């Protein structure tokens, strides 16, 4: 993806607002932050086994059995960093995830950065500019697996992993 313009920085498009002289980020700004500050450039194959959801298409598009957790994975040009994005689209429930990472280090460590709020309707205001924000925690890949991940409902998580040893 190539970012080719930088317009409408305030009030729409870029996810920033200014009220009472205070500039604050909307949740979508943080989502773009997570994508634009990662170093993965090469998409890699993702195989998923998970529950899906359907939409009637009453207002937008009829969809059958779409993945409830949307996942993409990328590696850096030197293949020393793996980046995985997980969006838990479920509006109510967390989703326990077991992740197996092949073609990468057996042992790796890194950070999970999660953007979420109390509900999918949560937003930031000039009085509470960080109600929806990123929370980070360390993660560890052990024997190619990351177990018991629990992305909260209506959340976007970025996992960044680097090897702890040679492959």
């Amino acid at each position, binding site marked *: 993806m*190539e970012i080719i313009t930088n317009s409408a920085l305030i009030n729409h498009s870029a996810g920033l607002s200014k009220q009472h002289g205070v500039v604050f980020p909307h949740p*979508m700004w943080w989502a773009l932050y997570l994508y634009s500050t990662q170093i993965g450039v090469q998409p890699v194959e993702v195989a998923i086994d998970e529950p899906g959801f359907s939409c009637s298409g009453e207002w937008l598009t009829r969809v059958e059995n779409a993945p409830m957790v949307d996942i993409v994975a990328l590696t850096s040009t030197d293949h020393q960093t793996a980046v995985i994005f997980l969006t838990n*689209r479920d509006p109510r429930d967390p989703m326990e995830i077991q992740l197996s990472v092949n073609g990468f280090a057996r042992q790796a460590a890194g950070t999970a950065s999660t953007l979420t709020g109390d509900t999918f309707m949560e937003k930031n205001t000039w009085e509470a500019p960080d109600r929806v924000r990123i929370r980070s925690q360390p993660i560890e890949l052990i024997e190619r697996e990351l177990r018991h991940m629990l992305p909260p409902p209506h959340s976007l998580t970025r996992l960044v992993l680097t090897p702890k040893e040679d492959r």
Partner: protein
Amino acid sequence: MLAVDPSIRIIANGHDAAWNEQVVAHAKDTVQTLSVHTLEGHHIPAEADPEAVCLEYMGFAANYGNHLRNLAAPMQKAGWTPRLAVTELSIFTNKQNLPNVDNLSEALYDAGIVNAAIRSKDWWRSSQTAP
């Protein structure tokens, strides 16, 4: 403009597949990319259930790769390298009691759109601003 700077790349206004087919037929010598404006939902009523609306947007994002392929089909049919530029993108209910551009729904929706772009690799561009 091209006479002054031949390196300029031109994005023409795209719309649906039928419109894009006409643009491709008439502008293939000057245009490299067609724009996409994804501003869905102005017709959703204020009394709609917010959770159902949120899931509709998640579903739309899940199907976005197919949407792009449909819009790019005229370019492929004409032998072009398909390139689309999403130059407008947001939830567009314009109702504060529903998923909207300023709440968390938008972040999740955008993530789904960007994921579709990653899966499509090099024929998708975005003009959404990055921090």
